[in-house]
């Protein structure tokens, strides 16, 4: 059984929601597919429906996103497919896109005339000694535990890295009653300030976006949480679980660590389609190239939000609107001129948000601060491939060739965690990275067999 839609949107975050609402306004039959049961994306990762959390995400930072989410959820004409992973995307001979989607209940196929990939981003995985110990999480993962599950995964938590988001996460943890031992920035305070001042003009119109970090700092001060700068984390210690972190200035006892070095796009699906990509920076990863209507190099395949380069939820929202009108115009649901008029303010908004995102990129630039790898530090978590195995084959060969001889990138995550590290070690700007392969997520053999 194959369901057909005018537009299939991969990802129910702000970009996907905004695009879906636009397309639905234009009377196009639209489906949104997401791995989470409910819409929201990672930014508004929703608690289970069986939970009641008064005041959930009430902070004014999230207000426009919450408003969008409520409108999206109220719109019953948009078809929502939650709890499903898109594992395959291809173009059929008749020009339609075919998406293979799976859940623990099995596999389905859907076809669509146009596809929008708004699959969001993931934390940049940064290997360092001890980072595979239980209790070490990506900072985003830790925040999602709090947002959606109301679980704080430790009593003495350390957040460490280069991205200012860790201030917000730490503040959210302590406000919820969790214990944060310290927030460690690798970079000196002055570097962050300087980047901020140097860019204050171009970021002027977005300074309000920086306010949450300032408020978070106040919250942390109130709760007596240490925020250290120029304190790059060097190793995480423990035997069967996290016991302490070592940074350049000493050791801090802790029972959980959140690593926060920035974010990289989820790029499996556009790469599976051979869309043109660019190296995103400075955190790494791949951004899908697109035109002014958010269409990728593949005709009919659109991209929005972090898929086009990590720039935050508000920029994602704007790009979702643009993509919605772009697809609507291509499908004849609105004239190109009218679409251009309607997206003008979203484009202007997005431009200024992208300027702010570049400022944030500069402040959070992890490149000078990647921790030194020890021989036994695992670079590939899935296949347990240590740095010592990779070092000897960093002789000019490609990422795919290193993958072949070391197994780095061959595991369950398909290289999503280790690829940025490997490309950094290879230091070849022309390396296209790992070949994206089906399936984008693991899927039981029985679901695929005829």
């Amino acid at each position, binding site marked *: 059984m194959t369901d057909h839609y005018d537009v299939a949107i991969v990802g129910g975050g702000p970009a996907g929601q905004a695009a879906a609402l636009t397309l639905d306004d234009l009377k196009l039959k639209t489906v949104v597919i997401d*791995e*989470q*049961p409910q819409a929201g994306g*990672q930014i508004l990762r929703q608690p*289970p*429906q*069986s*939970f*009641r*959390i*008064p*005041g959930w995400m009430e902070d004014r930072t999230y207000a426009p996103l919450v408003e969008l989410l409520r409108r999206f959820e109220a719109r019953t004409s948009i078809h929502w497919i939650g*709890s499903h*992973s898109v594992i395959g995307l291809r173009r059929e001979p008749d020009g339609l896109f075919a998406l293979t989607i799976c859940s*623990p209940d099995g596999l389905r196929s859907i076809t669509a005339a146009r596809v929008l990939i708004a699959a969001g981003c*993931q*934390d940049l*995985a940064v290997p360092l000694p001890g980072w*595979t*110990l*239980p*209790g*070490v*999480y*990506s900072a*985003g*993962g*830790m925040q*999602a*535990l709090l947002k*959606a*599950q*109301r*679980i*704080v*995964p*430790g*009593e003495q938590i350390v957040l460490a890295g280069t991205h200012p988001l860790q201030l917000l996460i730490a503040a959210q943890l302590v406000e*919820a*009653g*969790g214990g944060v031992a310290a927030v460690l920035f690798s970079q000196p305070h002055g570097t962050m300030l300087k980047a901020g001042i140097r860019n204050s003009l171009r970021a002027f119109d977005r300074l309000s976006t920086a306010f949450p970090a300032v408020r978070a700092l106040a919250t942390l001060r109130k709760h007596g949480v240490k925020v250290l700068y120029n304190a790059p984390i060097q190793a995480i210690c423990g*035997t*069967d*679980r*996290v016991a302490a972190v070592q940074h350049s200035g000493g050791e801090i006892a802790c029972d*959980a660590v959140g690593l926060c070095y920035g974010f990289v796009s*989820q790029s499996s699906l556009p790469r599976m389609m051979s869309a043109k990509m660019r190296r995103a920076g400075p955190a790494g990863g791949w951004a899908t190239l697109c035109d002014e209507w958010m269409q990728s190099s593949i005709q009919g395949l659109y991209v929005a939000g972090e898929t086009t380069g990590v720039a935050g939820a508000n920029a994602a929202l704007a790009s979702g609107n643009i993509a919605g009108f772009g697809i609507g115009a291509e499908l004849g649901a609105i004239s190109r001129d009218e679409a251009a008029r309607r997206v003008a303010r979203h484009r202007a908004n997005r431009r200024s948000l992208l300027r702010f995102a570049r400022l944030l990129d500069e402040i959070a630039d992890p490149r000078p601060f990647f921790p030194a790898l020890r021989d036994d530090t695992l670079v590939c*978590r*899935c296949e*347990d491939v240590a740095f010592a195995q990779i070092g000897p084959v960093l002789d000019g060969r490609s990422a795919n060739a290193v993958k072949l001889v070391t197994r780095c990138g061959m*595991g*369950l*995550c398909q290289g*999503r*965690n280790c690829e940025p590290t490997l490309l950094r070690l290879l230091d070849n700007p022309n390396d296209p990275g790992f070949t994206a392969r089906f399936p984008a*997520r*693991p899927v*039981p053999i029985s679901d695929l067999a005829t």
Partner: protein
Amino acid sequence: MMRLDHGIERGRRIQIILDGERVDVFEGETLAAAMIEQSSAFRRDSNGMARGMFCNMGTCGECTVTLLPGGQRVRACLVPAQVGMDVTRD
């Protein structure tokens, strides 16, 4: 590990089987959340080192567990706990 208890009403308490033992969890919370409440260590890697969840968003696969009796391998961070589930980390 702590489930926050103020400002939240969770779903009903249910039991699932985790590595052969009955454990109390809340309906609808993810298996990964329920497992973290027991221990942050989910498995041993090929070097015998303890390993836990990492990304909590379905991307890394570190939290993959087996559902019994069918033997399906699922990412625990994406699957809500339901009455009668039998989960093993092996």
